[in-house]
């Protein structure tokens, strides 16, 4: 008896639920509107616009935090290894310049090429930092953080760029040295001698970072930097410091071309990050 009433109740509930479902469907049909004509075009426009809004929101955040304090906050997040590498390069340059018996025309040539051979390692600090997010496969996650990957990367590259500039100027002064007769060498020549391998490493390193993903890119970059460094170190036998004066214009032109190439690689790298951001928004 009890079983029958339970069955009746169950059937009644089932019918009621079915009626409710039908009623809901019928209500949806009754309130249905004609298909919108411009939906897709509008949503496309909106996704582009919302990307702009996100960027303006980030600008608001940056203004609120203060640009200098934001940039300074990024100093802490730069890998300690990079600071250690910079310090090691500086220490090696100091040792090279201050080592006894380095005065004199011939030895001065060795100092400048020795310091130039260290420049690729200095360039590696910037390259390793620019490819860090990708090498740890954190780029996608970092795009969703409070400050976008692009702002963070630009801030860190700015810091390291300034640090490298300071180092290069110091190295150029160290490399300038003298000819042993109390006369100082040209700072332009020393600067170009150091800048050329630095820019060559930066250019090739950024190209590698753009081409290869993951940790492989960093390994290739270090390999390439080591090759350039060794090549530069071996150069003094074939190319003497005073002879550089004759080819100064060529050196300057090569440095300029490599500088333009490096800037282009940076712009492309940043552009690719932006494309990645657009892709993640659209998907």
């Amino acid at each position: 008896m009890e079983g029958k009433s339970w069955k009746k109740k169950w059937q009644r509930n089932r019918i009621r639920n079915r009626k409710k479902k039908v009623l809901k469907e019928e209500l949806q049909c009754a309130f249905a509107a004609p298909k919108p004509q411009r939906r897709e075009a509008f949503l496309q426009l909106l996704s582009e616009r919302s990307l702009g809004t996100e960027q303006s929101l980030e600008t608001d955040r940056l203004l609120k935090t203060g640009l200098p304090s934001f940039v300074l906050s990024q100093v802490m997040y730069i890998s300690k290894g990079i600071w250690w590498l910079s310090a090691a390069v500086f220490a090696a340059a100091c040792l090279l310049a201050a080592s006894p018996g380095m005065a004199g025309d011939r030895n001065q040539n060795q100092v400048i090429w020795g310091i130039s051979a260290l420049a690729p390692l200095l360039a590696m600090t910037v390259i390793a930092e620019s490819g860090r997010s990708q090498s740890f496969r954190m780029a996608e996650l970092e795009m969703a953080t409070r400050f976008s990957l692009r702002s963070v990367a630009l801030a860190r590259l700015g810091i390291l760029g300034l640090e490298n500039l300071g180092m290069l100027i110091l190295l150029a002064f160290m490399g300038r040295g003298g000819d042993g007769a109390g006369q100082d060498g040209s700072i332009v020549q020393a600067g170009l001698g150091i800048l050329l391998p630095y820019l060559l490493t930066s250019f090739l390193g950024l190209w590698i970072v753009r081409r290869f993903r993951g940790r492989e890119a960093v390994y290739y970059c270090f390999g390439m930097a080591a090759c350039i460094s060794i090549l530069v170190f071996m150069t003094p036998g074939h190319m003497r410091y005073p002879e550089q004066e004759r080819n100064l214009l060529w050196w300057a032109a090569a440095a300029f071309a490599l500088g333009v190439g490096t800037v282009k690689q940076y712009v492309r790298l940043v552009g690719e990050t932006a494309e990645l951001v657009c892709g993640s928004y659209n998907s």
Partner: protein
Amino acid sequence: MPMDPGEQYDRIYRYCYFKLHDRELAEDITQETFLRYLERYRCDSAQEILRCLYTIAGHLCVDAYRKHRDVPLSALSAERVEGSLPGREETGACEAEQTVSRLAVRAALNGLQEEEKELLLLRYVNEVPLQTIAKILGISRFAAYRRIVNASGKLKENLRREGF
């Protein structure tokens, strides 16, 4: 909290169409709603986003209604006149199924007041949470619940009369 316009577009458009019975106008107002929201509002929760969207859409519909109030009936598009029976030409999945029950539901709905129809649309068709409906209407949650229960009760009564 980011808003997904694709998810809400159809619902807001349906709401606007219900208010205006004009496809072009409803779509214009739907788009204007999203643009205004993105320009002026930053909501933290999904409920707040819905409240903002429906409130903006409601106000824009009122404005549009006032603007078009003086337009003579003959000037309106055939679609707008037929708006009371949507789904006649282009309601997608519902197009083929013109059943008796559908007519009964429409007839039952015609026996309701506009406000009651709006409540049913929001709650059962657009699936807006009760709390958000209360906020949109500016009433308490309990009052919103009572009104929805009354409207659905009235609809069921009308349906019973139609033999559903």
